[in-house]
Structures are given as C-alpha cells and as structure tokens.
C-alpha cells in the first residue's frame, strides 16, 4: 500500500505526518509535553546525551506513533565525533532506533600508526520497551518509569580492532533504565544499568581482557522553564583494552526546545582518555527533530 510505505519512509526520516493521514491509519501524532521525549543519546535511543532513559522517542502518546531524527557533533582535542540517525516510538510503549557513529582520528591517526584521517565507524540498532510507570504523570507515586532495551552494535575495521586487542567487531548491550520526574522539585532523575563489553561505546570493538560487565549510569536534570533544562550525567565504562586505559564519561548539558519539533542540546563532555590520548574534553552539539 503506497500510503503505508510513504508513512514508513516518513517515520524513518522524521518527517511530520499530517493529521489526515494519521486518521486514515488510526493513530495519532503529537501530544507529549515539551522535552518529555528526552533528547537523543549517543547510541541513538531517547534519553540524555550519553545514556538512554526510560522515555520513548517521539511526541506521540499511548494512542500514536512518533519519532525523531538527530545529528550530533562532538569536537575533542585529538578527535572529532559525529553521529546521525532516527528513532520511532510506538504508543509510548516501544521504541526502535538506528544510529551511525563516525569517530575521526584526524592527524591523531598518524600518531597511532593507523593512518592520517582514519575513521572508526559503527552502526547501532536499538530497541526499548517501557515496562511500567509514567515518569511525568505519576507524581503521587515513587515508582519511576522503567524500560529495558538492547543495542546491537557493529563496528567497521574488524581486523584492526582485533589487532588493538578487541575480541569482536560487533556486540550486544542490554540495559534497564528508571526515569523519574520530581515535578514539585523541577528535577528529573535517571539511572541506567548497562550490561556491556563495548570498548569506547563499541567504536574500538568489543571485549578484550574482560567480558560483559554491569556499568551504572546516572543523569540529573533541572528544569529552568518549559523549554530549557540543564543537567549532568555520569557513565561508568568498562576497561578491556590492554594498550589503552578507558575512563568514565561525564557531561554537563543544556537542552532547549525551540518548539514541539526541534530540540537543541549543547554539552561540555569529558570522555577521559581515548586510545592513549588523555583529557578528551569538548563541546557536544546535537540537533534533534521530533514529531
């Protein structure tokens, strides 16, 4: 059916769906309060900047389908990082996502002996299921919104990653997230527990001196207005590669909703030591379109 195909394409590229089309297909779009869809995390899921949350991508409620598309740029002293992708949320219950990450070593590549301008890349496919709770409306309960999810990550340059000490060039991560908006305090809290063996999120492959481990991640956000949220995140990381120490990540961020459809996120991110190059701190910018 051509209309359905067009809809599917629309969802994938994050294009707005008209009300008339939505009526014909018996679902709604829109309806979430500003910023409650979260931003797009570095893996492509709805969440904070560097960690997934229990929220479902897109603006739609339990009666509809929504989605987001994103582009993220991070400028580090010795590298640059880009990612782009899209996510779709179904009935505020289920989310699928895709993200492509490109980690450009620039002139650092030559120093690492892998060539000037060498780029580590990976594709990430994600799925998330909301199990319980409503982060926004359950203000009279302690129960947070809870979701479980998984990422399948597939990195390029398998032989090189093996040479660097990684066991595999692809891997699966699973996680559980709990998100709670404490509205009376204008505070949002998130805790995520990720079971992972990814090196630098998978860009440097999977496994090595250790197998899968549980890694906690936390986010705290304070709402300054309907449109503006500031906060910080901390993400613990595995350390599996013998040749280079991997450190925890953290960031401080501001997310601004220009309107219902466009959110800009700026952050100062500290990714620690990456492939023997220390103090990789820089400005993180992300543009997210959502419907």
């Amino acid at each position, binding site marked *: 059916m051509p209309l359905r195909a067009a809809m599917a394409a629309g969802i994938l590229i994050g294009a707005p769906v008209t009300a008339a089309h939505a009526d014909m297909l018996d679902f709604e779009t829109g*309806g979430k309060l500003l910023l409650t869809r979260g931003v797009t995390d570095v893996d492509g899921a709805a969440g904070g900047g560097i960690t997934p949350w229990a929220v479902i991508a897109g603006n739609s*409620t339990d009666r509809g389908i929504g989605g987001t598309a994103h582009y993220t740029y991070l400028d580090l002293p010795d590298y640059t990082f880009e990612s782009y992708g899209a996510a779709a949320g179904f009935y505020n219950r289920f989310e699928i996502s895709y993200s492509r990450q490109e980690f450009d070593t620039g002139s650092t590549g030559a120093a690492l002996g892998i060539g000037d301008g060498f780029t580590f890349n990976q594709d990430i496919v994600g799925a998330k299921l909301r199990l319980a709770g409503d982060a*926004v409306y359950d203000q009279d309960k302690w129960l947070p919104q809870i979701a479980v999810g998984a990422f399948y990550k597939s990195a390029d340059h398998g032989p090189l990653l093996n040479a660097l000490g990684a066991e595999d060039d692809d891997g699966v991560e699973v996680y559980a997230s709990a998100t709670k908006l404490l*509205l009376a*305090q204008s505070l949002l809290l998130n805790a995520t527990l990720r079971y992972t063996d990814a090196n630098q999120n998978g860009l440097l492959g999977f496994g090595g001196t250790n197998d899968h481990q549980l890694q906690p991640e936390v986010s705290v956000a304070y709402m300054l*207005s309907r449109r503006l949220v500031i906060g910080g995140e901390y993400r613990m990381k595995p350390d599996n590669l013998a040749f280079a120490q991997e450190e925890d990540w953290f960031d401080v961020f501001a997310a601004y909703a220009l309107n219902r459809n466009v959110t800009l996120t700026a952050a100062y991110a500290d990714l620690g030591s990456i492939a023997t190059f220390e103090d990789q701190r820089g400005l993180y910018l992300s543009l997210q379109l959502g419907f």
Partner: protein
Amino acid sequence: MRIFSASIALIIALAGPAVAQPLNEGDAVPAHMREGELHVDPYEISNKNAGADPISDPSVLAAFNGREGIARIVDSFVEGVRTDPRTEKIFAASDWVRLTRTLNEQFCYILGGGCDYTGRDMKEVHRDHGVTTAEFAAVVEILQAAMNEEGVPFRMQNRFLAKLAPMKRDTVTR
C-alpha cells in the same frame, strides 16, 4: 428576574437540553452555587473530591498572588480551554459558571488558600468526556500559559502541577 431566566434559557439553548436542566423555581439553592448554574444530580460534597491534598507551604499560595491571583488564572484558563482547538470540543457542553466556580474552589483548596471544594470528583466529572492523554497535556499547557500571565514562577507552577498530574488517571478515559 426576567434577565436571570432569559440567561438560563440561553445557557440551556447553548448547552443542549439533554445536558442539564435549570433549577426549578422553589428548589432549594445550595449556598455555594452561583446564579446561572445548571442543575446537577445530587452527590456527596467533600474536599476529597478535589483529587489532591492541599499544599501547606504558604510561599506557593503567595506566588499565585492569593485568591485574587487564582481567580485571574482560572478566568484565563477557562477562556483558554474554551477557545483552544485542541480542547474546545471536550468543554463544548460545560456549564461555564459552575466550572469557573468549582475550579476556583479546587485550585484555592489545593494551593492552601483555605477554600472548600464543593464539586464532584475527577472521575465523575470526566466520565463521559472521552479525554485523551494528548488533550490532558493540552490542558496542562493552557494552564501553564495562564500561570505565566499571572507571573507565577516556573518552579512554583510545578509545585501545583505535581498535585494535578496524577489526576490524569481519573481524567483520561481513552
């Protein structure tokens, strides 16, 4: 008296006869009711119907500029839900006089203004409205706009909204 009757007739005409009946002449009018309100079936009057316990921190009531501020917010909010394309259909058959009065009571009660709420509970009130989550969120946004107009600081708005948010469970029916 003629004007009073005429205005009742007008409201009935607008609301539709199936929705409400005027008070019959000679009926006892409860003290809390205002002129122009339509008949509702009897129910037990209780502050429990307000759907939330009052906020005891007086700084919240002060941020809302007391009962006068609440009255202005309610007026603006009622005008908002009545005209916003996202919500006008839900409120199409409302008794605006009664809605304005009961919202004033409810907001004042929850904000610790010392009022009593004489309206019905949220489940009863919204039973037949068929409200969706998106429409509930639209109502929240209209209330936020009304609180902004009154100059209520965002964090104080959230203290109030935290009390109202769980009402989604009794309000959203589809």
